[in-house]
C-alpha cells in the first residue's frame, strides 16, 4: 500500500515536471525574440527540474542517491538562472536596435530621476 502510494506520488510529480518542461520547450519554439525565449525557458527550468528530481527522489526512497539528487538540484538551481541572466545581458549589450522589441529606458534619464528622488 505504501509502495503504491509512493509510486503514484512519484509518477504525479514526474508528470508535473514533464508538463512544465514541455511548456518551456513550447515557449522556446513559439516566441521569436531571444529575450522572450529566455523568459519562457529559464523560468520553467528551475521548477521543472525540481519536480522531476523530487519525483525521482521519491522513487528511490531512502538511498544515498537522494543526497546526490539534492546536490544536482542545488547545482542546477545555481547555474541555470545565471546562464540565462548572462545570455540576456549579452543580448542587451550586443543588440543595437533593442527599442524595436521593447521599451528601453534611457540610462541618463533613469539616473536623473534617481538623483531627483534623493
Amino acid at each position, binding site marked *: 500500500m505504501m509502495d503504491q502510494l509512493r509510486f503514484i506520488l512519484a509518477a504525479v510529480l514526474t508528470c508535473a515536471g514533464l508538463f512544465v518542461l514541455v511548456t518551456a520547450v513550447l515557449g522556446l519554439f513559439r516566441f521569436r525574440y531571444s529575450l522572450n525565449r529566455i523568459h519562457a525557458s529559464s523560468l520553467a527550468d528551475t521548477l521543472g527540474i525540481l519536480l522531476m528530481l523530487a519525483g525521482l527522489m521519491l522513487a528511490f526512497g531512502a538511498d544515498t542517491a537522494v543526497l546526490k539528487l539534492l546536490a544536482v538540484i542545488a*547545482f542546477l538551481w*545555481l*547555474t541555470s538562472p*545565471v546562464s540565462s*541572466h*548572462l545570455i540576456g*545581458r*549579452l543580448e542587451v*549589450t*550586443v543588440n543595437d536596435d533593442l527599442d524595436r522589441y521593447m521599451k528601453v529606458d534611457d540610462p541618463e534619464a533613469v539616473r536623473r530621476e534617481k538623483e531627483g528622488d534623493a
Partner: protein
Amino acid sequence: MARIRSDYGPSPRRNFLLWLRSGDECFDRALIDSVSAPAPSEAERGRSAEVRRVPRKEEKVYRKAEAWNREKGTKLTRRLYLALCVVTALAVILLLLRTAALLPPFGEASNPANNEVSRRYIEQGMEETGAVNIVAGMILDYRAFDTLGESNVLFVAACTVIILLRVAAGDRDDAARRLELETDDRMYEPKDDLILQRIAAVLVPLVWMLGLYIILNGHLSPGGGFSGGTVLGAGLILYLNAFGFAKTERFFTYRTFRVISVTALTFYAVSKSYSFFTGANHLSSVITPGTPGMLFSAGLIPYLNIAVGLVVACTVYAFYTLFRKGDV
C-alpha cells in the same frame, strides 16, 4: 549578331516602361535626350565596323564551343557524374553489407574480442595492478604506452593551436596593443558581472574539488585523469569568465601551461619507462601494487592519473583562451 545599341534611344519598349513608371511627362524628356545626343560621325562608324570584322571567325569558333559547353557538355557531365555517384555508392554499400554479414554475432562468447587477454584483465587485473577500477588498471598499467600517446596527442594539438592562433609576442608587449586586445576580447561580453562572480565564488572551489576527487580516486572508482582533468579545466574556464584575465594570470600564464604540460608528460614517460624496463627484465621494482582499495595503492596509477589530469586541464583551458583572445 544583334546590333549593339545604346539604351538611350527612344525605343517603343523603353517609352512604354518610362510611361509605366513615371507618367506622361517622361516623353518630353526622352525626346529631348534623343535629339540632343550627338550622332556618331562617319569616321567613327567605319572604324568600329573594321574592329568588328577582324575577329569574326575566331568569335564564331568560340561561340560554337561555348554553346556546346553550355547546352550539351553540362548535360553530359551531369549524367556522367550521377552515374558514377550511383556506381560508387552501390559498390561501397555492397562492400559494407558483405563485411557486416561476415561479422560474428554480437555478444557471442566465442567472439575473437573475448579472448584470453580480456579474461586476464578481468580475473587478475586487480591482483596484478592493484587498481580496483579495472579500466584504470588497463589504460594506465597494461596499456600505459597507449595512454602516453593519447596525452601526447592532446599536447601536440595544443601546440598546433598555439602555432595557428597565438598573437605574436612582439605585439603583446606593446601597451597600446595590449589594450586593443583587451577591448577586442571583451567587447561583446558582459564585463565583471556581479551575479556570475558571486556564483563562481561558490562553484569554482566545488568544481575543482570534484575534479581533484575524480583524478585522485581514478584507481578506486570510475573516473581518472581524462575526466577529472576536463572538470578541472572547466572550473578554470568558469573562473576566467567570472573574474577576467587579469586575475587568472596571477596563477596561470603561458609559462605555467608550458611547465605543467612538459613536466607531467616527462614524468609519465620516465616513470613508465622505468616500470617497463624492470618488468620486461624481471628486475625487482620499487613500485608495488600495494593493497587494492587504499588511496595509496596500485603502484604508479594514481601518479600517472595526476599527470594525465594536469595535461588535460591545461589543454582544455589553453584551447579556450587561445580561441578567445589568441594567448594562454
